[in-house]
């Protein structure tokens, strides 16, 4: 679908835990063909120090209702302001942006690894990939149990594993310490990941060593989000690429990791 600048109607803003909110936005125009990894660039209104829009991944889409969901984690002033928005408010946004993950083939066994707000595109991918749930594993990392969002509505799409730095939920440690990753990686032929840079780099390096297909979704700082400012570039093996238009999803083989 064409990219547009539009006023979305905020239908719901639900607090999931201390720092995470789920926003449900209704588009004034029909929505079509939205895939995991794509994002929306949201205007933050009435915030004096904020000039640029803020990008957020698509968590879910309902074509019938013309709605999209976002998972917003409070990081700084902009994300905080956005989580204070009320249902009924309009939110101006540029949508849809970026390229999606490569959807898996029927015979694939995939591991999806999300950290922090990076779980959004992973949950979306689990939901729409169309694979037998036995062949979909989702590994989610967070600092502590209270930082994890409830994923019970996604349980039918795959097997879920958790890691927390303090051991309060699932395995203690980082996602890369979890046995699904550290011992059983051979079970998978594709890895998809989104989350903090260090996490994605550790995953990407292992995938390269073991020669497993691996796509990562980068979160470089953006000014425009649609390819005109050239601020968001990632240094790839074929030169500087715009994360907003060539990505945000990249195959680790193309990165200089």
């Amino acid at each position, binding site marked *: 679908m*064409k*990219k*547009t*600048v539009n006023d979305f109607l905020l239908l719901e803003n639900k607090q999931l835990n201390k720092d995470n909110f789920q926003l449900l936005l209704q588009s004034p125009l029909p929505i079509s063909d939205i895939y995991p990894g794509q994002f929306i660039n949201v*205007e933050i209104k009435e915030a*004096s*120090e*904020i*000039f*640029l*829009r803020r990008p957020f991944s698509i968590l879910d889409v309902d074509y019938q209702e013309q709605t999209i969901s976002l998972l917003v984690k409070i990081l700084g002033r902009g994300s905080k302001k956005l989580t204070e928005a009320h249902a009924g408010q309009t939110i*101006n946004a*540029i949508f849809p942006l970026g390229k999606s993950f490569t959807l898996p083939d029927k015979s694939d066994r995939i591991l999806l690894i999300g950290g922090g707000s990076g779980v959004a595109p992973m949950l979306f991918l689990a939901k729409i990939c169309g694979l037998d749930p036995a062949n979909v594993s989702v590994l989610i990392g967070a600092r502590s149990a209270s930082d994890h969002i409830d994923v019970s509505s996604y349980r039918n799409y795959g097997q879920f594993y958790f890691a927390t730095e303090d051991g309060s939920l699932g395995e203690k440690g980082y996602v890369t310490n979890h046995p699904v990753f550290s011992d059983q990686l051979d079970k998978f032929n594709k890895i998809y990941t989104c989350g903090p840079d260090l996490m994605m780099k550790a995953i990407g390096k292992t995938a390269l060593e073991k020669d497993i297909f691996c796509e990562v979704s980068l979160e*470089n*700082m*953006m*000014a*425009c*989000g*649609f*390819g*005109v*400012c*050239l*601020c*968001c*570039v*990632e*240094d790839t093996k074929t*030169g*500087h690429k715009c994360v907003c*238009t060539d990505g945000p999803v990249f195959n680790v083989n193309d990165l200089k990791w």
Partner: protein
Amino acid sequence: MVNLEIKIHELAFKNPVLTASGTCGFGEEIADFIDLSLLGGLVVKGTTLKHREGNAYPRMAETPSGMLNAVGLQNKGVDNFIRNIYPNIKDLDTHIIVNVNGSTIDEYVELTERINELDKVPAIELNISCPNVKEGGMAFGISCPSAEAVVRAVRKVYDKTLIVKLSPNVTNIADIAKAVESQGADSVSLINTLLGMAVNAETKKPVLSTITGGLSGPAIKPIALRMVWQVYNAVKIPVIGMGGIMNATDAIEFMIAGASAVQVGTAIFIDPTIPLHIIDGIKSYMERHKIQSVNEIIGSLQC
């Protein structure tokens, strides 16, 4: 019906609103959002003879009412422009202007000669004001003799409309404007970005990979307006104004201060439809003030 047509040298523009170099790509990137043919003109991304990778990431820092960038003229070079981009945009019903960059006078001249071969590029904007490159760029634009030397050399090989883009990082911009006018520039455009810097207090590190970068957006508007007014009073050639224009009122203020046309830059990052809103806003301002031709606004400042 109000008349929005303006002229820069002998080149007529259907309206005075252009998009600024480095902020609208090559037009194609914003074609989803707006009908490009409604623009007065489109100044494409800074072009160089050879492919340039630009500076390392991070290249951007958000600042109060603006941003710093340190892109450093990333572009695929003039051959790529002529082969892969020009064919797609040449038939647009708006003026395509190429922003010409070099690290030596010879490079400026050679690049200008290449662009001169393109029938559908009626003007170049000679960028002697990029703050984000080590060689050339702004170095040419901050002294009268070097600015004169580049313009003189380029003028010899270029008969179409020659716009020279000035740097605000100088003590007296009117002197530079007069210098380039004396060497045959048909117009000056200003301002390019102001040299600035951002520091991360937590890490004690600069935010940008290049430490310093170029400041743009509403934060620079008062400076840009002042400079447009100073230059307008110093030269006879038309002035193209830019710096922090976000809406029609901003654009009209620049025209009142002396700009014959304006360029919209950073505002496009916030909303790529802004240039069209500005055109509409200028129209309704003219209707409201019973102004028939937009030319009546230019330099109408009453002191």
